[in-house]
C-alpha cells in the first residue's frame, strides 16, 4: 500500500440524538498503513464516530468512505473493531467464541481454526483454548478480545482504549503486536485519552472536543504548530548575541538557565550558530516542544471556555 492512499475518508459528518449533537460536521482522512490517533476527552463524540465507521449507526449528514466505498456489510468484514466496553460469553469455550466471531466476519471455519491456533500461540494462551471465559484472568480476556479483533485479518483496526486494564508488561506486548500489524501495511485507528501512549504510537492525530474537530494532522505538524519557538539555554558568555533584537524577542531568566523566545522570522539554528561563533560555551540548547498532553489540555480548556 502506498503512503498516500486513503483508507478512511470522513467528510462533514454529523450525528444527532434528538436535541443533542454527538458529532458535528466532522471531517478527516486516515492514510493507509499509518497509526492514527483519535483523541479527545470522554463524551467528545469518539465512540459515536467509531460506531458510524464500523456501520453500527449511520450518520445523519455527511459521507464516510472506507477503502473508497460507502460503509456496507462488505466494508464491515475488513474492519477489526475492539470496543472500549467489551466482553466475552461467560460460559463458552474460548475456541467456540473465537470461531463464532470469525464466522460473523465471513471467515470459513477451517481458516478460522488455523488463525485461532496461530494467535493463541502468539498470545501465549494456547493452553486456554478449551477453557471458559470465567476461568480467565482479566488480562487474559483482554488478550482474547484482541485476538477476536484480528482473526479475520482486517485491513483497518479500530482499537478503542485497547490498553485499559492491562499490566505494563502486556501493554508493551500489545504495542509490539500493533507495530507488527502496521509493518504488514494495516491501518490502525487508535482511540485513547492516554496522551503519552498516543505520542509514542501515532503518526497522525485528530483531537475532537464537544463533538467538533479541534486540531488534526501529522504528529509533527500538530506539535510544530504549537511550538512557541521557545529555547531552553544554559551557557556562559554570548550575551551580546542575546541582546540582538532581530534574533531574540524575550528572555526569562531562571535559576540556572534562560528561556528564550525567538524573534519573529528568527530561527533556532541561526541563534545556535551565532552563539558558537561568539565563543560562548553551551551546556544546554534545547528547543522546547509542547507535549501532546500540554496541547490536549490547552486545546480542551480553550474550546470548553
Amino acid at each position, binding site marked *: 500500500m502506498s503512503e498516500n492512499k486513503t483508507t478512511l475518508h470522513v467528510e462533514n459528518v454529523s450525528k444527532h440524538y434528538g436535541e443533542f449533537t454527538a458529532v458535528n460536521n466532522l471531517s478527516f482522512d486516515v492514510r493507509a498503513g499509518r497509526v492514527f490517533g483519535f483523541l479527545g476527552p470522554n463524551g467528545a463524540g469518539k465512540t459515536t464516530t467509531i460506531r458510524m465507521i464500523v456501520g453500527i449507526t449511520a450518520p445523519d449528514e455527511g459521507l464516510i468512505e472506507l477503502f473508497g466505498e460507502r460503509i456496507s456489510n462488505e466494508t464491515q468484514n475488513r*474492519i477489526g*473493531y475492539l*470496543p472500549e466496553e467489551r*466482553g466475552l*460469553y461467560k460460559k463458552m469455550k474460548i475456541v467456540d467464541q473465537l470461531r463464532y*466471531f470469525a*464466522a460473523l466476519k465471513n471467515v470459513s471455519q477451517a481458516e478460522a481454526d488455523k488463525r485461532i491456533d496461530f494467535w493463541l500461540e502468539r498470545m501465549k494462551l494456547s493452553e486456554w483454548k478449551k477453557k471458559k471465559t470465567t476461568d480467565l484472568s482479566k488480562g487474559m480476556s483482554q488478550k482474547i478480545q484482541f485476538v*477476536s479483533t484480528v482473526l479475520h485479518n482486517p485491513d483497518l483496526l479500530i482499537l478503542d482504549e485497547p490498553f485499559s486494564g492491562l499490566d505494563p508488561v502486556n501493554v508493551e506486548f500489545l504495542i509490539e503486536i500493533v507495530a507488527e500489524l502496521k509493518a504488514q501495511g494495516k491501518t490502525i485507528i487508535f482511540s485513547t485519552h492516554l496522551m503519552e501512549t498516543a505520542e509514542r504510537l501515532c503518526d497522525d492525530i485528530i483531537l475532537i472536543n464537544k463533538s467538533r474537530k479541534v486540531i488534526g494532522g501529522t504528529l509533527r505538524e500538530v506539535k510544530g504548530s504549537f511550538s512557541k519557538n521557545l529555547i531552553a539555554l544554559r551557557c556562559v558568555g554570548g550575551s551580546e548575541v542575546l541582546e540582538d533584537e532581530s534574533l531574540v524577542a524575550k528572555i526569562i531568566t531562571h535559576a540556572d538557565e534562560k528561556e528564550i523566545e525567538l524573534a519573529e522570522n528568527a530561527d533556532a539554528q541561526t541563534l545556535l550558530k551565532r552563539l558558537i561563533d561568539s565563543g560562548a560555551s553551551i551546556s544546554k540548547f534545547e528547543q522546547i516542544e509542547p507535549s501532546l498532553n500540554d496541547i490536549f489540555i490547552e486545546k480542551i480548556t480553550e474550546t470548553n471556555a
Partner: protein
Amino acid sequence: MRKFLAVVKHEYKKIVLKWTFLLATLLFPVLGAAFAVIPALIFSIKGEPTRMVIVDPTGKIAPRLKENLSKEKTAKISLRDESARDLSVSSQGQMKNIAEQAGETFNFIEYSADAKSIEQLRSELTGKITDKEIDAYLIVPPNYDSPAAKFDFFSRKAGDIISNSILERATNGAVRSQRLADANIEEDKVKDLSRNVNFSKTTINEKGVEKSGEGIFAVAFIIGMMMYILLMAYGQQILAAVVEEKETRIAEILFSSAKPFELMMGKLVGVGLAGLTQLAIWIFSALVLAGIGLSQMSAMGINFSMPDITPLTVAYFFIFFLLGFFIYATIYALIGSMVTTVQEGGQFAMIPIVLLVFGFYMSFTVIRDPNSTASFWVSIAPFLAPITMPVRILAETPPFWQIALAILLNGLAIAGLVWLAARVYRVGMLMYGKRATIPEVWKWIRQA
C-alpha cells in the same frame, strides 16, 4: 445469509450441546414413564398374608366367605371380563383391579367361639392381635339378615384399603348368597339377570368420524402442559441470551459484524430449532411410551383408548409450537433489549407469563367442550392459540378453516412483534447503564 446461518448455528449449539438440555430432554420421558409404571409396581408388592379369625355363630356365612376369599376366587374376580361384572362390583378405582391381580391372601385361624359372650370374644381376640398371633377378626352377627345387623371387623392393618375392600366385597357376596339361598332363589340366575349393560363411550366429531372418548382428556392436558413449559422455558432462554450479549457488551462487536435484524432473527431461529428438537424427541418418546403403556394396560384388563395421533396432528403441534415460540421469544427478546439485567427483565417477563398461564387455563375450557364459542375464540386468538389449538385439535379436530385462521392470526402477530422488536433491539442493545423507559422505547420505534 451466511452470517445469519452462523448465528443460527451458534445459538442452536449453545443450547443443544449443554448437559442441561440433555437432562431436560431425557427427564421428561423418564418422568412420564415413571408416572405410568411406578403405581402399578408399588401395588404389585405383595403384603404378608392376613391371619384372620372369623367368628360365625350361625355357621352359614363363614364357609361362603372363606370360599370367596380363597386364592382361586379372588383371582377369578380380578380377571373377570366386562360381561361378568356382578352387582357388587362398583366402578370405582381401576387401580384396585391391578392390586387384586397381585393377589391378596388370607390365612384363616381356627378359633372356637363356643358359649363365649361377645365381650369375652372381643377381649380374647383383641389380646391375640396385640400378641401378634392374628392380624384381624370378623364377628358375624347372628341376625345377619336384618337391616340393623352389624359386621364388626377389627384389624391391625385397618389402613390396608385393598385387603379391606376385598374383604368387604367378599362378605357382601357371602351374605347375599346366603340370603338368596334362604329365599330359595338360584344365585346364578340372579347374576345373569343383574349384570351391567355394556356402556361403550364414543365421541363423534363433526365429520361424523367416530373418536374414542377416554384418554383424550389426559393426552390433551399433556400436550397443553408441554406447550406451556416449552414456550416458557425457551422464552426465558432468549431473554437470558439477549441480556448476556448486552451486559457483556458483546452486542457492540456483533453489531459491527452483522445487521441487527440478522442477529436477532438468527437468535430466534437458532433457539427455536433447539426447542423443536426437544419437542420432537418428546413427542416421539411419548408416542412410543404410550404404545407400551397401552399394551401393558390392556393386558391388565384396562381399556384406555388413545385419541388418534396422525402425522398431520404431529405436524400441527410443530406448527403451533413454532408460532408460539416466535410470539413469546420475540416478546422476551424485546424485553431483553430494554433492560440491563436478567433480574430487571424478570419484572417485565410477567406480561408473557400471564399470557401463557391464561392460555394454559383456557385449554381446560377447550378440553371440556371443544366446540363451544369460547373454545373457538381462544383457539384462534393470538398469544393463546399456540397452547389452546393443539389441545383442541386433539380433543376434537376443528374444521380446517379455523386452524388456518389461527395460523394466520398468530402469523400476523409474529410479524408485528418482530417489526417492533427489531426496532427496539437495534437501539436498546447499545444502551448501557440504565433501563430504557417506555417513552424512550416508543421514540426508537417511531424513529427507526
